[in-house]
């Protein structure tokens, strides 16, 4: 029997928090003086001064340039830390320096808000690296994409884009840092460790020796979820009892993953002065979310037909790779939340999901518009909204308009390239991996294809979860996914900001009765249609060969 209340309550909390959070975010990025300046102003001024930040407006090229360059410098710094961590302090477990291709992959992974991990935290990183490399990027990566999403919205709504450094700092001081700080203590209260002491050695009831890894996990965990980062302190991520001890921590993690990304449609509505349009986008995404959740729950509860045929008591559903405290309901919900929000944290092993449950997680990442990651996801959503407007314009033979600006050849070319890069980044390297490196794939048959497909989908969508049976710490996987993550992240940021810059330079056209309104249910339907048609046409063949074929072989 599905425990519906435990599903409905977290979803309801997310829905109720979305609007107030969205309005708060809009306020936090206002350049005019607000009440928030009193609270955060002094700290921010200190950081501006120490960083040498001038707070002048930038054009789209300066904004995108500062962003790409800042992130590149951070990747360099963190790469360096990984390579010399053995010589640095706070390394009680004597972790060795990271190998170059793995350090390359990991530094990009965390800067790209992906958090694909080809290492295991317990043995691969010192406490110092976890703090000044990983947690550092877990703040700056989402702050980067939140900043650019706000700049993108400013451009679309006819305002100057702002200053990248100011937006970066404000994302951290006004949104990420205060919320992460408070949430960390809730996690610690229910049992998440927060210590710099080394692993503890226990003498078990059976008299054996049990070494228990621990560390400063609480502060790591809160920003991991809030920033849609998703990289685990421990190898198995939030399935580890120390990284997710009970259902209080589990629910809070899901709420944090959804908090900012569900809020952005309302931020957009506020900044565009059209709350209704923001609401339409929110509801459209929520509908996709609920449909995918329903399918996932049904499949996981039905379980694995082959195991069920053994005659055991299988009313719990598919429990391989799941934790008893979460059961099927909270595991399935978490898997949908983490892929919808492009976080990539897992509380169940996605490799072990039933074929259709796995299909939902991969599908969410392919669409990348069911809310999506902090900032980057919403930019993608607005891109599809513009595609929807463009298609509608073609159908009635009018020049399409979005927020009073004509959408013309230049914008559509940029958007078309952005749209095409994603399948290219996923399908081409998947084909190479299957042809050249089949020995890295752990599960036989159709599922093996899904493993490779999942890895690149997760990299391109900057999600970071994996079908972890994959033997992915090899030069091929480290370099290939490193490049895919980098392009998946920064290519679309630059092209979409260019779209905003181009629209900003145009004159606003007055609205007439012939204008296709972008704040109606019809627009919501056009938006959903664009997402599903583009997504299905692109990925259907690959999905049929992977999870759907596996589903058919298991069917009794």
């Amino acid at each position, binding site marked *: 029997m599905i425990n519906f209340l435990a599903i409905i309550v977290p979803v309801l909390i997310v829905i109720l928090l979305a609007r107030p959070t969205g309005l708060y975010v809009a306020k936090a990025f206002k350049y005019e003086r607000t009440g928030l300046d009193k609270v955060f102003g002094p700290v921010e001024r200190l950081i501006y001064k120490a*960083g*040498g930040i001038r707070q002048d407006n930038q054009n789209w090229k300066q904004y995108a340039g500062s962003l790409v360059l800042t992130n590149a410098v951070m990747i360099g710094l963190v790469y360096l830390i990984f390579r010399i961590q053995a010589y640095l302090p706070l390394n009680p477990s004597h972790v060795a320096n990271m190998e170059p291709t793995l350090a390359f992959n990991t530094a990009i992974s965390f800067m790209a808000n992906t958090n694909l991990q080809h290492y295991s935290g317990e043995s691969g990183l010192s406490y110092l690296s976890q703090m000044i490399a990983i947690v550092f990027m877990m703040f700056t990566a989402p702050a980067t994409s939140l900043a650019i999403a706000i700049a993108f919205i400013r451009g679309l709504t006819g305002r100057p884009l702002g200053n990248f450094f100011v937006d970066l700092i404000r994302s951290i001081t006004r949104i990420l840092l205060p919320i992460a700080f408070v949430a960390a203590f809730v996690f610690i209260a229910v049992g998440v460790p927060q210590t710099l002491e080394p692993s503890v050695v226990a003498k078990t009831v059976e008299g054996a020796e049990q070494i228990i890894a621990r560390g400063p996990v609480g502060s790591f965990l809160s920003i991991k979820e809030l920033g849609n980062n998703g990289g685990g302190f421990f190898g198995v991520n939030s399935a580890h009892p120390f990284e997710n001890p*009970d259902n209080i921590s589990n629910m809070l993690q899901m709420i944090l993953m959804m908090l900012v990304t569900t809020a952005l449609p309302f931020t957009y509505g506020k900044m565009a002065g059209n709350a209704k349009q923001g609401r339409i986008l929110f509801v459209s995404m929520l509908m996709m979310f609920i449909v995918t959740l329903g399918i996932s729950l049904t499949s996981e509860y039905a*379980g694995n037909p082959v195991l069920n045929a053994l005659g055991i008591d299988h009313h719990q559903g598919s429990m391989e*790779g799941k934790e008893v405290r979460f059961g099927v309901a909270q595991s399935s919900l978490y898997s949908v939340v983490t892929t919808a929000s492009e976080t990539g944290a897992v509380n169940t092993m996605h490799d072990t999901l039933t074929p259709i449950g796995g299909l939902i997680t991969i599908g969410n990442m392919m669409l990348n518009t069911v809310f999506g990651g902090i900032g980057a996801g919403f930019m993608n959503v607005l891109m599809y909204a513009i595609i929807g407007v463009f298609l509608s314009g073609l159908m009635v033979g009018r020049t399409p308009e979005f927020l009073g600006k004509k959408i013309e050849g230049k914008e559509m070319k940029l958007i078309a390239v952005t749209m095409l890069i994603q399948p290219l980044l996923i399908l081409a390297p998947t084909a190479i991996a299957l042809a050249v490196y089949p020995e890295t794939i752990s599960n036989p048959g*159709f599922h093996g294809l899904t493993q490779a497909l999942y890895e690149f989908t997760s990299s391109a969508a900057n999600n970071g979860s994996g079908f972890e049976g994959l033997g992915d710490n090899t030069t091929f996987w480290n370099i290939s996914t490193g490049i895919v993550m980098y392009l998946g992240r920064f290519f679309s940021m630059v092209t979409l900001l260019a779209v905003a810059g181009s629209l900003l330079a145009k004159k606003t056209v007055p609205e007439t009765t012939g204008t296709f309104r972008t704040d109606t249910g019809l627009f919501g339907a056009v938006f959903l249609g664009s997402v599903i048609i583009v997504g299905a046409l692109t990925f259907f063949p690959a999905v049929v060969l992977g999870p759907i074929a596996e589903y058919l072989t298991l069917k009794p």
Partner: protein
Amino acid sequence: MRMLATIIRTSLVLMLVCGLLYNLAVTGIAQAMMPHQASGSLIKGDDGEIIGSELIGQNFKDLNDFQGRVSSIDYNAEGSGTPNYAPSNEDMIKRTAEAVEQWKKDNPDVPVSELPIDLITNSGSGLDPNISPKAASTQIPRISKLTGIPAQELQALVEDNTKPRELGFLGEPVVNVLQLNLALHERIAK
């Protein structure tokens, strides 16, 4: 050039604030206010020696004890992990079928239809400290026979160590295998 200086300085400042100060502040406060949780919810024996953690499962091979979930890493908490078997993986199907045969041998009085799936599947972490209440009570006939403790008494032990759903509706009710076995050993010692 000026911009590069800004970028490097800003990156270092953020590394200091978000990487170091934030983590150390949380660690300091947590250690002062919640030392038990912050150190890993450790369980100590009467002699003060650490037996384990409330949150981390342990191996129980002895048939006199309640057994926990399958762990491919043998509950070695220095790491964590599962074999990541796909539902169609032959090795997983074989392992599960063998577990069912083993169950029949160890528990001749309990039919396989009373064997809950969580007892014969690998947990996500390999460190799952819990089993479902059904998975605990289904082991009672075996343990009662081997230890001579009446079944009702064992059922009471299981119920004492069952943790209900959080806030009454979240997640699933669970039995902590380590704590249940500690209670069982205490009862045997009496």
